């Protein structure tokens, strides 16, 4: 099937070039035939790429090891789900996956966009075709063709990297890719609006929805990535400020900033230039992330093998940045604000500072990621910029942002006055101060942790107060019972109250991050029957008794498993196993270095995290690392709540007109007030 796949790649490439030309020329000259052709080109490219994906999957499932990609990433004994996910496990396959998903998103955008945006669509088709064609051209001309065949046929393939053989790895990359890729759609709309000079407010609606979708995918992808790193990599953490992790965080930060500042544009017609710049910047940062992942310019644990592909991306990144900002600059005079800020103390102003912090954090992360290169250029010495640097710079900024999460919602749009502010802030500030006092009395002395949890209390109280007062207002105005009022409040103002739910998720994440300050760990060598003890931050004593080591064969690996009995304060909790896995191919030949499978016991308060480091002199005497990670579970919960809030915000549609009319009690009074 690789011939068909190769034909489809070339077909998609040529169709993509045609689509880009037809889209831009058709749009500029107003030729409907070309515009239609561009639209069809996106659909056709999507079809051709889907056939290409199908043929690669076919080769993977047929174990056609004559195909280099199949031999490099699968083996006969690889479980089928990992065989499927091998599609995006390697550089070449993930490029194909990327281009395919982009053309799919592009087709959806063309199909689902409302009629009134149709003036923009030829340019959208053009931008999508351009970007997808670039990815295809990397495959075709950057020695990254996934259908490349070897001169011989190996008996069995290399198999998938053991670290990728984890359910988290089946879902994490596609989610992250979906996030990265879907940014292209808002970018395409932004470019379309700029090129066509249709810079009224309407394009904003299309962009906002796609950005939200992209933001949601990226959030889920980042959380899944943290989860995967935690359960699979075995260092007991989930975020290490690795350049590739940073690359996924950067567009997330700028998109979050956009999702806030876009409200100002919708309500006040301000910040048009800024919002467009944020969208273009987010897209460029996503391409920058791809460049980092694939070039090997910056050392990272995630990198694909170094290849010339990096130069393609660097060139594309620079060309795209120059082109998009040139168009942007030429349209600046058309992007004037329609209103002015009414007060320094207003939601608008707080959103501007929120944007400052989001973009500031993005800048500092980018700065830290690129600083090794900068240092080499300027002072000629290589430096390493690791977690200590990022923590030092970003923790204070993150905490400031968390504070704003609580402050912003308390300030009214447009303007606020002191007595009202006092009334709004009383309860949340009290809650925050109270939390801090409780922590201090409880003996917590870690400054950042106390601040994070204290601010968490403040923000939570803010959100609760917002829901409470909102429901109260509805109760008074419409006489709705409180539960109904609460439900309607959320259902009728999904964007506002869904956003608050996201805030709750963020608070939980920050508190969980703070828990990592109290991580404790120890290493021990144990013979069967011997035990190690470790004190948890909650004051409990855990006792780990080594029961013994067993060795057995599994489908595609040889397992050496150590079992430990765990007691907490003398009470038996159960048995935990941790493994060494030597992966083998279908002929029983070892494929990768032995990998470690972590034993994890989670509960709401802390995780026990046990790693089998190795065995002494081929006996059952084993070296273990025991770690207690407080509150890790809450990272996953926080991530889920963020995703849930995002879904609520995205949920489409308004109520029926009849229902709306019955809810308009105060609106009527409002106008009569004025009349009187």
């Amino acid at each position, binding site marked *: 099937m690789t011939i068909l796949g190769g034909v489809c790649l070339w077909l998609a490439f040529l169709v993509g070039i045609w689509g880009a030309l037809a889209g831009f020329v058709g749009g500029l000259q107003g030729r409907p035939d070309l515009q239609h052709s561009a639209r069809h080109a996106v659909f056709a490219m999507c079809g051709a790429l889907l056939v290409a994906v199908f043929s690669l999957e076919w080769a993977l499932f047929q174990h056609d090891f004559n195909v280099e990609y199949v031999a490099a990433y699968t083996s006969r004994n690889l479980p*089928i*789900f990992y065989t499927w996910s091998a599609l995006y496990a390697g550089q070449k396959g993930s490029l194909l996956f990327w281009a395919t998903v982009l053309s799919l998103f592009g087709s959806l955008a063309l199909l689902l966009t409302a009629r009134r945006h149709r003036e923009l669509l030829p340019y959208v088709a053009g931008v999508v075709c351009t970007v997808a064609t670039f990815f295809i051209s990397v495959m075709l001309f950057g020695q990254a063709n996934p259908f490349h065949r070897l001169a011989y046929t190996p008996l069995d393939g290399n198999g998938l990297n053991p670290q990728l053989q984890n*359910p988290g790895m089946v879902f994490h990359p596609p989610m992250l890719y979906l996030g990265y890729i879907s940014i292209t759609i808002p970018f395409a709309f932004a470019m379309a609006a700029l090129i066509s000079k249709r810079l009224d407010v309407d394009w904003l609606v299309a962009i906002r929805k796609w950005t939200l979708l992209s933001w949601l995918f990226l959030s889920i992808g980042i959380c899944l990535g943290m989860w995967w790193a935690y*359960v699979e*990599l*075995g*260092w007991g953490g989930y975020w290490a400020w*690795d350049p590739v992790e940073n690359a996924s965080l950067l567009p997330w930060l700028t998109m979050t900033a956009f999702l806030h500042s876009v409200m100002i544009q919708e309500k006040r017609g301000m910040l048009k230039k800024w919002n467009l710049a944020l969208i273009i910047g987010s897209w460029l940062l996503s391409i920058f992330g791809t460049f980092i992942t694939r070039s090997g310019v910056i*050392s990272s*644990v995630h990198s694909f093998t170094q290849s010339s592909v990096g130069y393609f991306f660097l060139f594309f990144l620079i060309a795209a940045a120059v082109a998009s900002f040139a168009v942007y600059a030429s349209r600046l005079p058309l992007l004037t604000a329609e*209103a*002015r800020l009414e*007060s320094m103390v207003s939601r608008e*102003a707080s959103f501007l*500072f929120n944007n*400052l912090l989001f973009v500031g954090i993005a800048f500092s992360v980018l700065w830290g990621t690129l600083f*090794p290169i900068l*240092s080499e250029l300027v002072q000629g010495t290589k*430096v*390493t*910029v*690791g*977690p*200590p640097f990022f923590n030092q*710079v970003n923790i204070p900024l993150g905490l400031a942002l968390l504070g704003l999460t609580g402050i912003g919602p308390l300030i009214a749009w447009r303007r606020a006055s002191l007595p009202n502010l006092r009334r709004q802030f009383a309860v949340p500030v009290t809650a925050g101060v109270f939390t801090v006092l409780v922590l201090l009395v409880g003996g917590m002395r870690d400054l950042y942790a106390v601040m994070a949890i204290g601010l968490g209390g403040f923000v939570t109280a803010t959100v609760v107060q917002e829901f409470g007062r909102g429901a109260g207002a509805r109760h008074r105005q419409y006489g709705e019972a409180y539960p109904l009022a609460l439900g309607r409040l959320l259902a009728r103002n999904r964007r506002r109250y869904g956003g608050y739910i996201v805030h709750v998720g963020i608070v939980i994440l920050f508190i969980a991050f703070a828990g990592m300050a109290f991580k404790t760990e120890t*290493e*021990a*060598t144990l013979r*069967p029957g011997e035990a190690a003890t470790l004190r948890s931050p909650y004051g409990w004593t855990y006792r780990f008794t080594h029961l013994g*080591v*067993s*060795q057995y064969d*599994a*489908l595609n*690996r040889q397992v*050496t498993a150590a079992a430990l009995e765990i007691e907490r304060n003398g009470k038996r909790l159960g048995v*935990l196993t941790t493994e*060494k896995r*030597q992966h083998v191919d279908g002929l029983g030949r070892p494929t990768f270095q*032995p990998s470690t499978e972590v034993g*994890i*016991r989670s509960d709401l308060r802390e*995780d026990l995290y046990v*790693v089998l*480091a*190795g*065995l*002494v002199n*081929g006996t*059952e005497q084993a*070296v273990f690392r025991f770690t207690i990670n407080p509150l890790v579970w809450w990272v*996953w919960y926080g*991530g889920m709540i963020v995703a849930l809030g995002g879904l609520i915000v995205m949920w489409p549609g308004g109520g029926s*007109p009849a229902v*709306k009319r019955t809810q*308009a*009690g105060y609106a*009527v009074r409002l*106008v009569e007030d*004025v009349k009187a």
Partner: protein
Amino acid sequence: MTRGHDGTFPVSRREFLALGALGLLGVSGNVPSWRRVPPQAQDSLPGTGPSGKLWDPSRAGRPFEPVRAADNDAAIQAIEKQIHCTCGCNLDVYTCRTTDFTCGTSPAMHRRVVALAEQGKTAQEILAAFVKQNGVSILMAPPKRGFNLAGYFVPSLVILIAGAILTLVLRRWSRAARPPTPSRVSSLSSAVAASPEELERLRRELDQLSS
């Protein structure tokens, strides 16, 4: 993920899907690895007593040394967390040696740290010794001097300056947007000099909005 001890097919399809779904929800942690088994015999392999020989030691990676006191020494760990492992892993020495057990570089660097510490050197001297041999890039974070200061302070500085500019601009905007009209409230009725029909229409329009 799965700790199936059946030895034949470690991940059944249903189990995998269930795990995947759980993983997607982020609730994996305690599901697969935690089984309540009744207290029973220590070892399932026949013929191996306490500290028995492994059937095939080569499957378990390189042989390990027993842990020494220095391995758990917090002071040494603190030093190692500031040293970049040179194996290409992009981690610090401590994290690498306790995570990547196939790495030969980080244990060697660990031994060097321990040896230097046993010579009575302070943390600063140990770090200096590493810098002397490997250059500044051996440190996880660049030392705070010279151009590196830019690395630390440019982001904060940029944010502070941008914040100051933003404050000034906002103040100017809000001042410009608020003409000095003290009797604003009294001018309300004149500002809204709308005919009853218009207000009626406005009322209807407001009805249309969902609340």
